[in-house]
């Protein structure tokens, strides 16, 4: 049955486009820059989404995380650098992760389930997400990010905490995803 449907649909398409002119793709827009992304711009754009952002030298990352987690215990996905955060056992109330790529222009963080990022569910269920971004992971724009990413990995693009504007268009942070997103950017 499905085989018949497949043939019918493909046949319908072929007869529909028969004789239609060739359509060339025009790419006049700004493409890949290949340059490093602007840390300040990235921080500002993430803050625009009402996320908390810390920009700190690499040497101070562990201390910064220790400060943030003084009142919290975070779940740690496999492969997260233990010199940055190594919690004691216990019930967690949030998650910490690294990321694959970050985009300055849009304030976006992309997770690709690589080391330190866990499964997609691990950074979704907790109400609090602390994400660590290294300066060299920040790219200027969307084309740069696409070029760096592998489409066949499970990807989650995150731009601020979960939000809805469904009630009279009032933006409310946090519906189903983590209601608080905190970002530590390690420079140098």
């Amino acid at each position, binding site marked *: 049955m*499905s085989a018949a*449907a497949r043939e019918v*649909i*493909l046949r*319908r*398409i072929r*007869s*529909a*486009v028969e004789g*239609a*002119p*060739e*359509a*060339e*793709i*025009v*790419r*006049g*827009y700004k493409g890949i820059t290949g340059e490093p992304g602007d840390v300040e711009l990235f921080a500002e754009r993430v803050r*625009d*989404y009402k996320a908390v952002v810390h920009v700190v030298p690499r040497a101070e990352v562990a201390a910064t995380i220790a400060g943030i987690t003084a009142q919290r215990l975070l779940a740690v996905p496999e492969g997260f650098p233990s010199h940055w955060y190594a919690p004691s056992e216990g019930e967690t109330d949030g998650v910490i992760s690294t990321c694959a790529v970050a985009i300055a*222009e*849009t*304030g*976006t963080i992309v997770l690709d*389930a690589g080391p330190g990022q866990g*499964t*997609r*569910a691990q950074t*979704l269920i907790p109400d609090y997400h602390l994400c660590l971004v290294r300066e060299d992971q920040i790219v200027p724009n*969307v*084309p740069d*990010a*696409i*070029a760096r990413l592998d*489409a*066949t*990995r*499970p*990807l*989650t*693009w*995150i*731009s*601020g*905490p*979960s*939000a*809805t*504007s*469904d*009630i*009279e*268009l*009032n933006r*409310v942070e*946090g*519906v*189903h*995803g983590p209601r608080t997103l905190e970002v530590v950017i390690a420079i140098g």
Partner: protein
Amino acid sequence: MSGTFVGMPTFPKNAAKAVQDSQLRFNLRKATHTIRGKRASVVGELDDWAELREAGKTIKDHTLRHLDDYLIQMEEKVTAAGGTVHWARDAAEANRIVARLVKETGETEVVKVKSMATQEIGLNEALAEEGINAYETDLAELIVQLGDDFPSHILVPAIHRNRAEIREIFLKHMAGAPKDLSDEPRALAEAARVYLRQRFLEAKVAISGANFMIAETGTLVVLESEGNGRMCLTLPKTLISVVGIEKLLPTWQDLEVFLQLLPRSSTGERMNPYTSMWTGATEGQEFHLVLLDNGRTSVLADKVGRQALRCIRCSACLNVCPVYERAGGHAYGSVYPGPIGAILTPQLRGMDTPLDRSLPYASSLCGACYEVCPVAIDIPAVLVDLRGKARHTRAEKAGMAAAGWVFNRSKRLAKAQRFGGRMRKLVPKRLPGPLSGWTDTRDMPDIPAESFRDWWMREGKR
């Protein structure tokens, strides 16, 4: 398309009713103007917007021209990544496939992410007939579903409800809603979070649509805000995605264009909070992709109308449309309201009903929709073309010809206006005789006592 709206009266009757509803008008106006402003500011940030739009348009046109090849490539890639691909000629076939897949899991409940394609085919109703409950998880869809109502906007389907109404709906229909629930948006969102959380954790089957499919890699892409999409796409063991065949993009690189065009045009954000991308069976899931035709190939066969298939459902055209702002989404009698609905619905469904025939007239041809469309769909041109194709009664044609004769000459117009002004009290709301066919589908505009032109001549001379 969906049986949901069958039997609805024609656009003008619906619109006339909606125009009287001041709450709806207020909500719509507030919403459309807010989003419009946000869109304009984030679009203005990109100095290559025109080039992105051109790329978006040409990528879509190119894909549609070779849709057969790209669909086959998509099928190969998804299959190679452990997914199963199904093809559905029409709504009934798609619904049958999904119902069978759900039954094979032994489940009777599924969670859903907002998807226009599944609304178009009336999937929830079809599943209900098979004893399967589908739970919408998008906050707005939840409001619509609990309120036993129809969506009114592509992006904010519950735009016609205010907070007090939403609180009422939750208290009445949401099991476990706190008795002291306030009408604060934050409290309402929290109630929905609690209500749906258990459902997400227990659900074994999820159904979604997709914003894009990448033929080169077999990847599916879903953009959202709340996180309910991520919940549905990642937690359940089985994921079924129903996607229109026109959602395809040839290459991974093409996504860089649409991830800039869509969020900025749609919610007026630089990027939406969450975008999920997955290829085939992911992280231990079972994955099914249902490729849906349901009228799309006949749209594709129309030289002028096929550009409607470029649509990425951003809803920018709704938010700028003066007719939509006044009439509201329900008047269009379709899951696709606004300017895009006026050209897509009659093409997908054919123009057999009076409602669908009246849709191409739900526009003043002002062209604002074309201007904001991120894939440059010339909606006014398609409207005009469809008007020509609709089988109109002779009276309708006579009415149009008479109007054309009057409006074409300014002197005749002035005369007609003065005459109309004097006769104002006597003008019936419906034209008599054969011309009633014209007023049946169009409002007679209220005739002002004095035309602007007369006022100007009189006052300007002082």
